[in-house]
């Protein structure tokens, strides 16, 4: 109760702050607007931050939005592979949540959500209190299934990194690569699909190979892929590896890591083959983030959350919407930041419609994933997804989308422009 009054007071304060800014931003937020509902968004990554902003924008400030994010700042995975190669400063990945508060009147709470009570429509946090909602959007990204790789215990995780969530691990992996002697082996293991960012591991291989080629040319990049082939932009990556990194990158398909030995810096696969490396980068299999698990939202393969693709509402729990990497994606939909942004907008649109007394309509979504292959050249894969009423899911539009012809500098420039734009798009 106390919390609710508190929430309301802070919300009004936030609105008043926004009202004075409305002339500048061109968005009319009146302090005396009648609220049509309350939405809590859990997780301020690509999906959640976007949803929070668009709920405010598309409701004209009439939906009260609380974004609960455990981290004080957003750190982008996209472009983090460039930090590993030394082509980008880590600080460029860091972005604040102030814009969402100041420009859009989103209430930001830095705490961890510990429980969702869908019946009472409340979420509980570790130290931020409780929050009531009409709808909740769950956007926690992924958590790792460490138990599927024997020996990958907490002590081992100090040394064997994933760097598959950007942050301290990104910097730590960069340090390991810098410390690696010329002639050392950098080994990267890739879990079975679906995993976060299908082209991400192959981009990482390119960028680290590019760094090593200039700085430690006797070294090697070993890509140990649990899948039977490259999962995205296959021919494009193969061609670059052949043309630019021929003796540097070695690719092994069907290499499913099942255990690690931190003392030896070694990884072993299902068949008992062991690889030792100077720098060992093990990306464990993952599933929807912990809160999705504890809230009973995981209902596909014990890993992912199924949703109604019109409302992005969970098929397991009512009034709970799930977006981003936590989802069981539609066909050819990748787990990408671009896609999570689109989910966020679709969920926001559906909730605005519902709280306005209308019936939500399916909306189009599109994806584009850029990858860098060295310091300057980029390439992409793109797709457009349209809702199919019979299949009750988005399907890729035939004849639309596609791949780059080859990596080039212009697409490298657009890849960087994409990152700068989407960071602003979701957070300001």
């Amino acid at each position: 109760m106390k919390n609710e009054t508190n929430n309301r007071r802070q919300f009004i304060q936030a609105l008043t702050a926004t009202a004075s800014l409305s002339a500048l931003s061109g968005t009319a937020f009146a302090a005396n607007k009648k609220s049509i509902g309350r939405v809590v968004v859990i997780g301020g990554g690509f999906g959640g931050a976007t949803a929070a902003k668009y709920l405010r924008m598309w409701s004209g400030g009439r939906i009260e939005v609380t974004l609960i994010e455990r981290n004080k700042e957003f750190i982008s995975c996209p472009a983090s592979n460039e930090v590993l190669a030394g082509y980008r400063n880590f600080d460029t990945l860091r972005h604040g949540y102030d814009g969402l508060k100041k420009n859009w009147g989103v209430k930001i709470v830095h705490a961890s959500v510990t429980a969702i009570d869908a019946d009472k429509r409340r979420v509980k946090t570790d130290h931020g209190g409780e929050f009531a909602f009409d709808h909740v959007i769950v956007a926690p990204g992924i958590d790792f299934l460490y138990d599927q790789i024997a020996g990958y215990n907490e002590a081992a995780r100090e040394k064997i990194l994933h760097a598959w969530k950007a942050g301290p691990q990104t910097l730590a992996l960069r340090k390991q690569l810098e410390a690696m002697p010329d002639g050392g082996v950098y080994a990267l293991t890739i879990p079975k699909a679906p995993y976060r960012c299908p082209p991400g591991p192959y981009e990482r291989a390119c960028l680290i190979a590019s760094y090593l080629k200039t700085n430690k040319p006797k070294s090697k990049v070993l890509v140990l892929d649990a899948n039977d082939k490259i999962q995205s932009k296959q021919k494009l990556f193969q061609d670059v590896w052949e043309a630019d990194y021929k003796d540097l990158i070695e690719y092994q398909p069907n290499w499913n890591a099942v255990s690690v030995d931190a003392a030896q810096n070694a990884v072993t696969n299902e068949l008992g083959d062991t690889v030792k490396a100077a720098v060992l980068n093990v990306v464990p299999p993952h599933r929807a983030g912990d809160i999705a698990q504890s809230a009973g939202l995981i209902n596909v393969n014990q890993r992912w959350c199924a949703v109604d693709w019109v409302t992005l509402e969970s098929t397991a729990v009512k009034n709970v919407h799930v977006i981003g990497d936590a989802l069981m994606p539609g066909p050819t939909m990748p787990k990408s930041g671009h896609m999570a942004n689109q989910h966020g907008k679709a969920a926001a649109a559906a909730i605005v419609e519902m709280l306005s007394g209308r019936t939500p309509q399916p909306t189009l979504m599109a994806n584009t994933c850029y990858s860098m292959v060295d310091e300057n050249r980029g390439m992409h894969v793109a797709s457009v997804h349209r809702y199919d009423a019979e299949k009750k899911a988005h399907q890729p539009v035939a004849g639309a989308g596609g791949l780059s012809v080859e990596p080039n500098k212009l697409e490298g420039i657009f890849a960087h422009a994409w990152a700068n734009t989407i960071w602003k798009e979701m957070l300001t």
Partner: protein
Amino acid sequence: MKRSKIHIVVALLFVPIIGVAQNTPPDYFVANCFNCHGTDGRGHSTIPPLAGLTKPYIIEQIAAFKAGTRPATVMHQLSKGYTDDEIARAAAYFAAQKK
């Protein structure tokens, strides 16, 4: 009594273009384009902004992307996912945005 009426009038003044007071939903799909071109097409990068371009210009560019007569890195692929009617609606939306 009087006061509440004033309130309603004030509230109505603030109804934004995209907003809850309409009976037909807005074209949410236009936000597909914002990821690269910026919110409402007001981007500040090497990907060209769309806000304030004229509707015929946008329609013409998309037609050229689709036909392959204007070279592109990605727009020729993305634009094929949208119908002519959707492109016309998106073009109208961006044309109405302040630069």
